[in-house]
């Protein structure tokens, strides 16, 4: 077992671990203000959604030519961010990296929050959400949209289980140790702890289940984002018609996800005073991981842009030109250079991998990752094979409207709410795993 704890660990004891890690479970005033703010924001956004429900998708900037706008870009972004759970817990966990233990739950929470809201984001893009069930009733199994829906549901379920199963011992601990909690919360812990007694056999069982899920989530996670990419790549449209869209999306997802985890780590560490558990070392390693996945993503970007740009196929000239030096070039280069290349280069400097700079760089990467999805989704639609003719002037371009932006912000708010509640309801760092590790260290 790798020795990865820093010197703080030496001072840890079982009691201290429990005290430290359960301390965040309370409804502090600070949290109430934060949550109240989010709720107020969400209400405003919901009002715009009601407007869209009543007036239809006409309130958005979408039109006959650009029928996928920021809703779909946002959806792709959410699915991307949701993929990180798989990378951290599954891939790194199974390779045997124990340093991910304190942050794996954060990664899982992020995965669950984004996957949950991704489903809602898709609904916001529907003109008649009351006909949602028609997708199941009349959907064609040949359509990537049906695959997408199936795989999103599956991934969400797996992520929930991956979050929940290692939580069971901790929930039971909460039930026993925490006092002065609201009644509903006590009841919740009681139901969710499933009569956990903490015996050897139970640990063995959940560890077995956990392992099965860790393996299962890898193909499903790859599938979810590959299928999302197929929503585009299975068409003949310029800029989407690419056989490497699957790996391109998956590698991009890891970039967004790592950045999201780094940001969450920073705020959780600071707010819940978890410096002894989420250490500089964790930031350093996560940042290095971010550099690695960024490099992979840059590699795919080069392929995705350079190959068509070198050939300049007649049908692609306009699209590529638009990205490289035309209408969308500013956004394109900001996203590629400012949001990917410069940040990962900065992260190669050790000092930049300290918590604060790493967090700030991650914010830039995450924002760029959102706009990157926009660059993938929207410009292609403005270059159809048949010329855009006999349409209103406004159809020649796409600009999201206020309701559209508000609804998108609303979905982001929902993600923050889910993350906030989950991190307040349960220990963010697995208590029993920390204890286990402590025991192991003491043995040595």
């Amino acid at each position, binding site marked *: 077992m790798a020795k990865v704890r820093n010197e703080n660990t030496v001072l840890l004891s079982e009691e201290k671990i429990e005290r430290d890690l359960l301390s965040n479970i309370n409804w502090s005033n600070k949290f109430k203000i934060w949550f109240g703010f989010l709720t107020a924001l969400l209400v405003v956004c919901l009002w715009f959604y009601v407007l869209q429900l009543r007036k239809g998708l006409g309130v958005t900037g979408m039109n006959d030519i650009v029928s996928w706008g920021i809703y779909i870009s946002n959806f792709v972004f959410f699915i991307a961010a949701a993929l990180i759970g798989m990378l951290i817990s599954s891939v790194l966990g199974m390779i045997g990296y124990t340093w991910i233990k304190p942050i794996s739950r954060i990664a899982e929470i992020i995965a669950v929050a984004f996957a949950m809201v991704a489903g809602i984001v898709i609904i916001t893009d529907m003109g008649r959400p009351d006909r949602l069930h028609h997708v199941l009733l*009349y*959907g*064609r*199994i*040949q359509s990537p949209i049906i*695959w997408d829906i*199936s795989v999103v549901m*599956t991934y969400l*379920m*797996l992520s929930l*289980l991956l979050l929940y*199963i290692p939580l*069971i011992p901790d929930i039971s601990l909460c039930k026993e140790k925490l006092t002065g909690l609201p009644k509903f919360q006590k009841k919740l812990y009681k139901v969710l702890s*499933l*009569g*956990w*007694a903490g*015996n050897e*056999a*139970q640990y063995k*069982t*959940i560890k077995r*289940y956990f392992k*099965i*899920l860790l393996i*299962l989530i890898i193909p*499903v996670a790859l599938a979810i984002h590959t299928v999302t990419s197929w929503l585009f790549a299975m068409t003949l449209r310029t800029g989407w018609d690419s056989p490497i869209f699957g790996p391109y999306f998956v590698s991009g997802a890891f970039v967004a996800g790592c950045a999201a985890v780094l940001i969450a780590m920073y705020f959780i560490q600071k707010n819940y005073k978890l410096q002894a558990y989420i250490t500089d070392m964790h930031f350093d390693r996560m940042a290095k991981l971010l550099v690695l996945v960024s490099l992979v993503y840059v590699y795919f970007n080069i392929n995705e842009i350079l190959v068509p740009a070198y050939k300049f196929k007649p049908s692609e000239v306009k699209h590529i030109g638009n990205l490289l030096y035309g209408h969308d070039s500013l956004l394109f280069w900001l996203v590629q250079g400012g949001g990917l290349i410069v940040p990962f280069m900065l992260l190669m400097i050790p000092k930049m991998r300290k918590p604060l700079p790493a967090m700030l760089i991650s914010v830039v990467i995450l924002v760029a990752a959102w706009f990157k999805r926009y660059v993938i989704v929207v410009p292609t639609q403005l270059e159809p094979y048949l010329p855009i003719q006999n349409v209103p002037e406004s159809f020649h371009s796409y600009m999201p409207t206020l309701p559209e932006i508000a609804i998108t912000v609303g979905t982001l708010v929902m993600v923050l709410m889910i993350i906030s509640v989950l991190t307040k309801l349960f220990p963010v760092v697995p208590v029993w795993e920390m204890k286990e590790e402590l025991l192991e260290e003491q043995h040595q």
Partner: protein
Amino acid sequence: MKNFVLLLLFVLPLFVAAQDNWQVPTAEQEKLSPYVFDNDMVKDGEVLYENFCISCHGTVTKNNPIVFVPSPGDPASEKFQSQPDGSIFYKISNGRGGMPSFAPTLEEEEIWSLIGYFRNFNREYVQPEFDYGDEVLSELAMVLSYDPNVDKLVVKVTSNGEPKSGIQVGAAVKGLFGKFILGNVGTNEKGLAWFDVDRNMPGDEEGNLTVQVRAQEGYSIKKAEEKMQLVNPTERTNLIAGRHLWSKAIKAPIWLIVVFNLVISCIWGIIIYIIIGLFRLKKVS
């Protein structure tokens, strides 16, 4: 040089004005078509028009010729139609300025068919009788048959029961949008003309093709159209039959249904197994 340009400036308008008035010699004006403007003639004319003329004269009746001075004009227009057949024949044959001369490219009969096509747009037009004079028009008759030994279409031309030799016979297969020419052959002393037929040509389910044959001797023309069993039967398959990725939901490919459901049920099977196991966690000890 300067003077020349000035001269041109003065002369050019006069020249253009002169162009408006396209004189046709009187003798030429009186020329008439020996061919009757029947449906076949009009159809031939339409095809020719679309091949040679539409690029300048535009779609007939739409009045959309290319911009040109003097304007080519629309063949259905008053300016065209008010002229005698002979004038139009003369103009197409000889051309002027932007209008090419078609005498080297088109047969006389073809030019007449173009005129037949134009006249088709004029309800008041009655084709003037052509004076055949002393020429005796022979009554031609044709019999079509198929010789399976040599894969050939055989056309026998007779007049008053006698085989006619040296008669030009043209044969074609009628298609949806035009015709496929089989050839142009003169009859032998037995009055027979032979045409190669490729048995792989697409026909109907029974292998039938519609053959159009035309025999001509002087101004005497005989046409025949017949449905004949000439080629291998075509098997028609329903294009939307069977299972396809692009078809309806109920026509999804089996492999896709199997793979999709297998994968989904395997994964959800494991999920359900784990969930049930979790509910039994209490009893584990």
